[in-house]
């Protein structure tokens, strides 16, 4: 049995007066893929943005509760959100490579901007993470072309490489395939299965088949609440809550 990497207890989040997450408690295991499913606007994206303290950069956003990353509360007093984000990387819904940077510079950005200047170190890390992201063979001839010139699927793998380059412990993915075609999606899914050997992965998805295919654990969110959380097999074959069953069988709404 693996050990927990993220222990979330009674997490609440607000945008102004709007209470978007209500008392969420769940535990994500290390080196496993945890999928979060649920209809649009149910709070899953907000939830993972609370796990790297990115929720609070939005004006009027607030959080309460505790999120323990390998035992330390990331909302504890004196904890620097910058250090948390270094340990908990994030890939966003739309591929967002830095527009003025080349493929190489995109991947190197995190390291370079935190002080790693040595070319050899950067070269090695860029190659290593682009290989991890299954992108190296496609871009090795064009490392110095703009990252924005790649296709959508390549851009998303570039963003994954960029996130991996700073060696986080956890990788959060916010609907990483929603802007991609099925072939690019399949590549990313395959990639996630290799990444879980090294990283703990949390993925938000609208696509239930995707959750069923790649994840070990699944959480179902509805209207800001975590309705059900458990092993993926159990959630999809034998959900305990009626609402989960309605949602995964498409009888919802």
């Amino acid at each position, binding site marked *: 049995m693996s050990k927990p990497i993220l222990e979330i207890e009674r997490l609440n989040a607000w945008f102004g007066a709007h209470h978007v997450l209500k008392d969420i408690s769940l535990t994500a295991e290390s080196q496993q893929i945890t999928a979060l499913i649920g209809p649009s606007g149910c709070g899953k994206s907000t939830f993972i943005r609370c796990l790297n303290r990115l929720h609070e950069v939005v004006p009027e956003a607030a959080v309460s509760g505790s999120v323990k990353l390998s035992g330390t509360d990331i909302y504890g007093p004196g904890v620097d959100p910058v*250090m948390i*984000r270094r340990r908990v990387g994030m890939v966003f819904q739309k591929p967002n490579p830095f527009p*003025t940077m080349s493929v190489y510079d995109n991947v190197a*950005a995190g390291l370079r901007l935190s002080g790693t200047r040595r070319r050899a170190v950067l070269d090695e890390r860029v190659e290593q993470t682009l290989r991890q992201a299954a992108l190296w063979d496609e871009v090795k001839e064009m490392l110095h072309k703009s990252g924005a010139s790649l296709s959508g699927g390549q851009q998303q793998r570039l963003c994954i490489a960029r996130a991996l380059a700073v060696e986080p412990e956890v990788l959060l993915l916010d609907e990483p395939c929603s802007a991609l075609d099925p072939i690019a999606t399949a590549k990313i899914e395959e990639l996630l299965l290799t990444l879980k050997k090294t990283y703990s992965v949390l993925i938000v998805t609208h696509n239930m088949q995707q959750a069923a295919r790649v994840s070990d654990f699944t959480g179902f969110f509805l209207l800001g609440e975590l309705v059900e959380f458990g092993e993926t097999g159990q959630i999809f074959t034998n959900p305990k809550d009626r609402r989960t069953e309605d949602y995964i069988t498409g009888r919802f709404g």
Partner: protein
Amino acid sequence: MTPTLALGRRVINGVMLSLTGVCTVVVIGVLFFILGYITYHGIAALNWDFFTKLPKPVGETGGGMANAIVGTLKLLLLASLIGVPIGFIGGVYLAEYGRKNTLGFLIRYAADLLNGVPSIVMGIFAYTVVVLPMGHFSTLAGGVALGIMMIPIALRSAEEFLKLVPATIREAGLGLGLPEWKVVSFIVIPSAFRGILTGIMLDLARVAGETAPLLFTAFSNRFWSRGWLEPIASLPVMIYTYAITPYEDWHRQAWAAGLVLLILVLGANVISRLVLHRRLAG
């Protein structure tokens, strides 16, 4: 659909399309008329002497405006040194930290008011704070007047172009575990750089032609102005003084000065665009 309706639509479409076409031609036509007219009159008096010689005394023909060309460049340099950093840094504040707070609102409001202040009032202001205490006209006073005039446009254009950088780019930077100031300095500002520079070039082009604020600040000078504390000639003020004299030769030189000013402004614009284009392509 009935044929009459289709015919009606076709007629309306034709009329509207022609109207937009006519308006385009009128706008572009006026621009080219002005450019052509200035070129036609200016080119006649433009010669090597114009760029290399000082103005001749009244009555003597010939001479040039070398001092005014250099003067305009010096004034613009000084104005940029004052207006661009203040405007740019203020714009960064507004876009990154002051989007919704009171200070941001006040700065934005003040900038818009400042932008509406008539340029001659700016001249009087610089006269009061620089010329009077120093006791004489100077390049410094002219640069201050033009520099203050540059602030609001530099500020608002920096703000607008920074705001156009998508929030997802900022979040990607923050998500890498980079402190906010690094995200702003090394990711957001470079993404908006092209737009900000274009805004600054337009701002510079606008003050390059200002005459009124220079009348009581830089004044003018028929000789070379040494350093930054003497009165200095500039193309707009030369155009103004030469155009209101009764001398044919001076009128021709005023046209030539107008042409040179135009080329300076257009040239700066074209060059900055080319440089940016190459930088991006590479």
